[in-house]
C-alpha cells in the first residue's frame, strides 16, 4: 500500500459510498452539517471519544470508512440522542453510529470494547429468538459469557423480591415475523 508512513489526505480521491448509503437509507445529508460543534459540546461521553461527534460527521464526508469502523466512539456512545437533539441541521448522529456499529459487527471487526460488543450481540440475539428482551436471561448469559458469574447477583435478588424481575418471559406471539425481519436484514442465520 505504498510507503509505510502517514501521508496527508488526498481530497480529490475521496469516494464516500457511506455518505450516499446514509442518504438513501436514513435520509441523513451530512452536507447540511454547519461544523458548529454543538453536538460535540453536548455529548455526554464526548470527552472520552477518540473522534468527537462533529469529527465523526466529517469523517463520513471524507469517506474514511476504515477509521469509522475501527473507532472507539462506536462502542462508548451511549445513544443518548443529545447530539441529534441539539444539531441545528438535525443530523441523526446516533443513527449513523448504529449503522456503523452494525456494519462493523457484520465485517467482524473486533470491537474496541469487547464486553460492549458481546452485550450488543447477546441482546440482538435474544430479541431475534424471543422477540423481546428478558433482563434475567440477558444478564445471566452476559455474566456467563464474560466469566463474572455473580456480578450484580445481590442486586438481582433484591429486585426479584420486589417483583421487578420476571424469571420467565414468554416469547411474543408473532415471534416468527420477528425472525423473518432479522433474516431479511441479516440473511439466513445458521
Amino acid at each position, binding site marked *: 500500500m505504498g510507503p509505510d508512513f502517514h501521508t*496527508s*489526505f*488526498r481530497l480529490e480521491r475521496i469516494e464516500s459510498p457511506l455518505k450516499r448509503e446514509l442518504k438513501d437509507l436514513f435520509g441523513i445529508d451530512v*452536507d447540511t452539517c454547519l461544523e458548529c460543534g454543538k453536538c460535540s459540546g453536548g455529548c455526554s461521553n464526548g470527552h472520552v471519544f477518540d473522534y468527537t461527534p*462533529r*469529527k465523526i460527521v466529517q469523517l463520513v464526508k471524507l469517506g474514511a470508512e476504515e477509521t469509522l469502523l475501527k473507532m472507539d466512539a462506536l462502542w462508548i456512545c451511549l445513544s443518548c440522542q443529545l447530539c441529534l437533539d441539539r444539531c441545528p441541521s438535525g443530523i441523526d448522529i446516533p443513527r449513523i453510529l448504529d449503522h456503523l456499529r452494525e456494519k462493523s459487527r457484520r465485517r467482524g471487526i473486533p470491537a474496541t470494547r469487547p464486553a460492549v460488543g458481546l452485550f450488543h450481540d447477546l441482546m440482538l440475539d435474544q430479541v431475534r429468538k424471543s422477540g423481546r428482551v428478558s433482563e434475567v436471561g440477558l444478564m445471566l448469559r452476559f455474566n456467563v459469557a464474560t466469566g463474572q458469574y455473580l456480578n450484580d447477583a445481590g442486586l438481582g435478588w433484591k429486585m426479584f423480591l420486589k417483583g421487578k424481575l420476571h424469571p420467565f418471559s414468554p416469547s411474543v406471539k408473532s415471534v416468527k415475523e420477528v425472525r423473518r425481519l432479522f433474516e431479511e436484514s441479516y440473511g439466513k442465520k445458521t
Partner: protein
Amino acid sequence: MPENTKTALVIGGGPAGMEAALRIAQAGFHAVLVEKEPELGGTLRDLHSSFPRWENPRELIDHRIGLLTKSRRVTIRTQTAVMSSVRQAKGFRVSLKSLGNGGREGYEDELDVDAVVLATGFELMDASVYGEYGHGIYPGVMTSLEFEGQLKTWAQRAGDIAVDAPHGVALIKCVGSRDRSKGYPYCSKICCMYTAKQAGLVKDLFPDTRVYVFYMDYRASGKEYEEFVRQVIEEKHVRYIRGRPAKVLPEDGRLLVRAEDTLMGIPVEVAVDMVVLASAIVPRPGTLLLAEMFGARTDEYGFIENEPFEPARSSERVFYAGGCGFAIETAGALNQGAAAAAGVTALFNEER
C-alpha cells in the same frame, strides 16, 4: 420648477456613480458623469451572475444606462479623465480630458461644478506577492476577477463546453485580506459571497467537476446570504474546507493545493486544474490622486474617509460612494450612490 443650473460632477461610471448621477438628475439638478472606460458599468461589467439571487448584472447596467441616457439633466462623458481641479467659493473648476478615440481624443475642456461625487470603485491587490500560491507563475492560478472572465467565456460557449472542463477547481479565500504580514489586516467583506457564487457557477456548468473552497470563516451577513452559501454547499455540493492553504505546487501538469483541515486537525492535499485567489480589495491608484485633487480625506490604505457624523461626505462639497470608500457589494454601492446624491441635493437646495 424653474430650470436649475446647479451641477454635480460624478467621477466613476460604476453602479455607485450611475446611481448618484441618476438620483441627482431626478432631483432636478444637473449631473456630469465622467468615466475613463469606453462603457459605463465599472467592475460590474466583468462579472458573471450575482449573489444572492444569481441575477445577470448586465440587466442592471442596461437598465441604469437606459434611464441615464433618457434624462436631459445627465451628461455622460465616457473615455474622459479628470485632469485637475481648483476649489472656488461655491464649487470647483475642473478640467477634463477625453482619452479614447472618436475624434475628440486629447480634447480638454473646463467645467464649473458645485459639488463632486467620487465613485471610482476598487480593484484587487496584486496576488503575486504570495510566491507560495504562484500567481503569475502557474497559468492555472488566477485572481477572482480573472476567473469571472473565465466563467463568462465558459457560459457563452454553452455548446462545446465539456471540451476544456476542469476536473478540479480550488478557490482560496483571504489572499491578502486578514494578513498583516503580506497584505492588509482588514477583511474585504464580499469575497466570501462572490467565492460561493463562483463555486456554485462552476458546479452548474460542470456538475462532475470537484470544487473546493478553502476558508477561515464564511461571512454571509446579508439578506438571503446564508441561505445562498448553504445552497452552494448542500445542493451544488461544493466542498468547504476550513484551512488557509499553505502552498500551491506543480504536480504532473496539475496544481496541488497543500493545506490543513483545521476542523479535523489533519493536513490535506488536493490536485486541481485551477486555483482562484480571492485577492484583497484595495482602492484604485486614481482614487488617491482624485482625493488630493479635491481635498478628500483618505485612510491609511487609500480608501476615502468620511467626515465625522457625515456618512457620505468626505469634505466640503465632496461626497463619495461605492468601492472607493471600502469594499462593497453591488446593492451597497447603489445605496451609497443614492446617499451621496441625497447629500448633494440637500446642499443644492440649501443654497437655492
